[in-house]
């Protein structure tokens, strides 16, 4: 398939796929296509460089001067149909994308309080979620300016704004649970300027349709005509509320449990609190030991796999160049190990390294103040990107984050941070250097899904193709 294509030209891609823009703020605008002719006209203008009335889709490129804003679009299956894509072409998109995120809810663990029936508008009407536009900028004024463009001319005629979601960084790469995030991302040989993170290079087909995938000999179907599907990819857009008060409360509760448990002294020998942080009480140090075990990284991002004893190793360690060859350093069930086992031994050996995701996320909601804990909604606006939702995002969510099929020692448990946990049945094993692990129980659900959609992120030529569809 890829042999039929010319050389890979990254500038044909939307710019938010292979790299993050690293902007301070993001606004997602959710649209329904109401007049396909006007909507296509608007899309065509946007994909062709934009103009005074229409923001340009930002392509993949290196720039010397950062633009004022970046702008990208994703389309749901319903959105492709609403734009006028015919049944024969629609039928070539994968089943999970056609079904949409709502109908895959159980598979993703979106049940109970995370169930789509509980999602607020506009995600309570998934059939009308057609196009999600993302505006990235460093301040609200630029976001507003672009949004105003989206409320006039062809956009106003063709699209109905169903709702917006705002996100913004409050402390660099730190997220609400207090961890540094956005550390490890797949790196592609075709994008030369990626920093060497010391991780294996991912095949382009992990991100984009029409290229070799991580599974030997296997390729995903590229919706035809080639211009429509080639270099496209899929995005699981998720609004994930994070219960920070609940999380910190759980760390309190667990620290108390460990203070009372003699094995707590094996986990953190008394007198060693200083290596966790200067001036920490034993209780505070135990909280951080548990927080690190749940995530697989200390809150400053240092991986347990390289520094199991302290978040401040001397000399410093890489945040990305590590593996799980020493099994005991990082808990098997820790969040980052569950969602990306790297080179660790896993049950599904064929699938090693094949389920990687590109993650682009930005926090939303006010920063949590531990001195004045509140229950205001806050969380992450997450994008989980790959060439196959089924083989990557869904496989990770279903088999690994929940269920824990990849290692018999965690099978039957869910991810301690992201999993669909019920305190009556949840558990997490805290490994000890000697002897049996300490089993933590009673983990509640810390992350609740509040909306989302499966989006297709077309290449720029594909956007122009969609814009050129004959009137319906």
């Amino acid at each position: 398939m890829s042999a039929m294509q010319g050389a890979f030209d990254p500038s044909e891609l939307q710019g938010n796929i292979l790299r993050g823009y690293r902007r301070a703020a993001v606004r997602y605008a959710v649209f329904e296509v109401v007049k396909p002719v006007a909507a296509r006209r608007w899309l065509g203008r946007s994909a062709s460089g934009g103009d005074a009335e229409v923001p340009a889709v930002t392509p993949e490129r290196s720039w010397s001067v950062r633009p004022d804003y970046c702008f990208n679009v994703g389309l749901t299956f319903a959105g492709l149909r609403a734009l006028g894509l015919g049944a024969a072409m629609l039928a070539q998109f994968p089943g999970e994308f056609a079904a949409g995120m709502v109908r895959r809810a159980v598979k993703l663990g979106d049940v109970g309080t995370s169930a789509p029936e509980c999602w607020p508008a506009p995600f309570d009407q998934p059939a009308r979620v057609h196009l999600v536009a993302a505006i990235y900028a460093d301040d609200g004024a630029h976001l507003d300016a672009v949004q105003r463009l989206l409320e006039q001319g062809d956009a106003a005629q063709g699209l109905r704004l169903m709702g917006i979601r705002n996100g913004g960084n409050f402390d660099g790469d730190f997220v609400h649970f207090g961890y540094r995030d956005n550390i490890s991302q797949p790196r592609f040989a075709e994008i030369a300027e990626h920093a060497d993170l010391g991780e294996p290079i991912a095949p382009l087909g992990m991100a984009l349709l029409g290229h070799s995938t991580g599974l030997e000999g296997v390729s995903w179907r590229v919706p035809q005509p080639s211009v429509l599907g080639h270099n496209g990819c899929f995005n699981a857009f998720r609004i994930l509320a994070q219960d920070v008060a609940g999380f910190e409360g759980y760390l309190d509760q667990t620290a108390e449990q460990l203070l009372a448990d003699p094995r707590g002294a094996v986990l953190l020998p008394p007198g060693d609190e200083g290596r966790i942080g200067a001036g920490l009480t034993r209780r505070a140090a135990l909280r951080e030991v548990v927080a690190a075990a749940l995530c697989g990284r200390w809150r400053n991002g240092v991986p347990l796999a390289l520094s199991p004893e302290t978040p401040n190793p001397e000399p410093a360690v890489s945040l990305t160049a590590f593996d799980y060859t020493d099994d005991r350093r990082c808990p098997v069930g820790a969040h980052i190990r569950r969602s990306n086992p790297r080179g660790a031994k896993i049950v599904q050996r064929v699938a090693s390294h094949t389920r990687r995701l590109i993650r682009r996320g930005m926090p939303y909601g006010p920063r949590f103040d531990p001195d004045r804990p509140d229950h205001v909604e806050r969380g992450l606006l997450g994008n989980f990107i790959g060439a196959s939702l089924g083989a990557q995002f869904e496989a990770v969510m279903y088999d690994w984050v929940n269920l824990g099929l990849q290692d018999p020692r965690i099978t039957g448990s869910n991810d301690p941070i992201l999993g669909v946990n019920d305190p009556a049945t949840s558990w997490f094993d805290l490994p000890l250097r000697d002897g049996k692990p300490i089993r933590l129980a009673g983990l509640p659900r810390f992350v609740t899904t509040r909306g989302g959609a499966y989006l297709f992120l077309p290449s720029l030529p594909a956007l122009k193709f969609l814009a050129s569809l004959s009137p319906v």
Partner: protein
Amino acid sequence: MGEATIAQRLVEAVRSDFPDHQPGTRPVHTVGIGVSGTFMASEVAGQFCIAAPFRAAQMPVLVRFSNGSGSPVEHDGWSDVRGMATRFLPGDGAAMDMLAMTLPEFFTPNVDAFLQFTKAAMPQSVERESPWRKLIDMLRLELPLPDPEPGETMNGSAGMMAYANRHGFAGEAVFRAGMIGAPVSYARATYHAVHCFIVTGADGVRRPVRFSWQPVSGVRTTDPTAPAIDRYLHEELRARLAQGSAQFMLMMSVGEGGDALNDPTRPWPAKRTRVAMGMLSLAQVVADQLADCERVGFNPCRLLPGIAVSDDPILRARRDAYEYSQRERGATPCPFAGG
């Protein structure tokens, strides 16, 4: 509303479903027989539950088998739910009860619904459905109303079915109760403790679980097309135990996230981890049935450290309802409790 009031209403509601109920007897499962025997915990039982019955090697037990009806008249051969109440006596005056029945689920998920259900199940006079009506049912490929048992003039079947059709949660129990038949022996039925309990393992881990007794001799019901016999279960049990013991395996299913932990109307799938907790061997029918069985008051909430009730509202309500009922009929809650 005080607890006693709910308990009283529950007991009165159940009684009202059986017009010929006799004061001083159990409101349901009125006809029964007491048997003594021993329970032997399996080698792994103590890992999952530290309660005394699962740690001791062997202990005496008292079991009362019963027909589900609150009527004092014995109709062994009628299609009906059967009960198996077990009292574990691990020693030192301790006692733990496990109440089980042949239906794997209960009719309602909470007390209010149960009060409505008992109202709906109030006996109405029954007649065989007319042949014409039956023919129409057949043409509609629908289940006709079950024929009444010979001599049965009143029952709650139609009311229960109507209730189940309005309240989906009752459907499974009503459907299954309608098909349940009569066991050839009390020792040849599976009995389910229905509710979720929380057990604490040797490692301190608490697990939501449900228990079932499975007969070693296998499950068998009578031929539903043969005429029903009114009295045979007690004699059959005496004869069986005179020949040797009757055994039951205690199986414990471990609930999981996503299971209806506190809803007794939803059985858990057979795909849950199943632990063999021990073997019950019944030795003999107790000599003084009145003193050593009929006066004994079982309670599903009489537990020992290491096993606790879940948040199942029906289970929690049963604690007081059984106590109220026992006071009413002058039973001994626990012969070893000194009271």
